[in-house]
């Protein structure tokens, strides 16, 4: 029970859009962009959290930066570009498709393809067993 309560609290904390911000953005559109950007920028001190989810000082400084840039009229792409210029591609949870990052995007599909090929092979083998000779399987079964 206690575990569930703890999980519930955790969920509550992590699902809040910007748990550490007191100040809202001036317009709902800006708020939406702010929430989006802060969730796709990595906190460089605690690398598996976004700056929206991290309580450390650097993350709050970067959130302030995002807020100011949005208000100053910068586009999302310009803000991402500025962050990459300072911290490198690693600050983006969705890095651009480039020479150095291509494998990040390709590898999952490659593994999926391998999985599908293996699956097809197994299914083919089994179907050919059934289609081939029933009596062999029957003997097998009775032999056990």
């Amino acid at each position, binding site marked *: 029970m206690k575990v569930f309560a703890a999980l519930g609290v955790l969920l509550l904390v992590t699902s809040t859009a910007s748990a550490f911000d007191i100040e809202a953005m001036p317009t709902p559109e800006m708020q939406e962009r702010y929430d989006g950007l802060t969730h796709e920028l990595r906190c460089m*001190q605690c690398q598996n959290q976004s700056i929206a989810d991290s309580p450390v000082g*650097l993350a709050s*400084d970067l959130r302030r930066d995002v807020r100011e840039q949005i208000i100053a009229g910068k586009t999302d792409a310009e803000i991402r570009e500025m962050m990459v210029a*300072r911290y*490198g591609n690693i600050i983006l949870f969705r890095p651009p498709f480039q020479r150095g990052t291509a494998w990040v995007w390709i590898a999952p599909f490659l593994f999926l393809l391998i999985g599908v090929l293996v699956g097809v092979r197994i299914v083919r083998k089994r179907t050919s067993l059934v289609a081939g000779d029933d009596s062999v399987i029957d003997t097998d079964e009775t032999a056990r």
Partner: protein
Amino acid sequence: MNRFLLPAAIFLALSGVLYIGVVHSPNKSTMQSALLGKPVPTFNLPVLGSPGTSLTNAQLAGRSWVLNVWGTWCAACRDEHEVLLAIGQQNVLPLVGLNWKDEDDAALDWLKQLGNPYSVVAVDKDGRTAIDFGVYGAPETFFIDPDGRVQYRHVGPMTAEVWQREFISRIPQGALP
């Protein structure tokens, strides 16, 4: 036996991929600066202990210099302080301190008690300059060349070896006394 060959091959291949991933995973202490080869960010910051005066990146142009990001809240900064003092005494490069998100009084106390290795300390109270430098944890130390370009960034406490290997070696020929 043959039916194990393919799974074993796949297992080995996957192990290899994961091994490379683990070995090359972004290590916090070895992450390269995105600023390498790029111009040093512009800044205009108050000088610690001298109210009314400020330090700009333009004032430092024309020769190599070193920027050390520190704060009194940073335990690893205390660890490297001895090394910084020794470096300061060598006096081969201007050692500029960037006091990051700190209190002036605490910073002045720290330098009084532990000694002051810096040529000058700039105060970055709200952390904006540190962000421009791509700082993600103190201490960090940057080498900037006479053209005002960032040539190296060391993350973590400075050591005599790193200083010799990565900083002294980058001083242009003829600039050493």
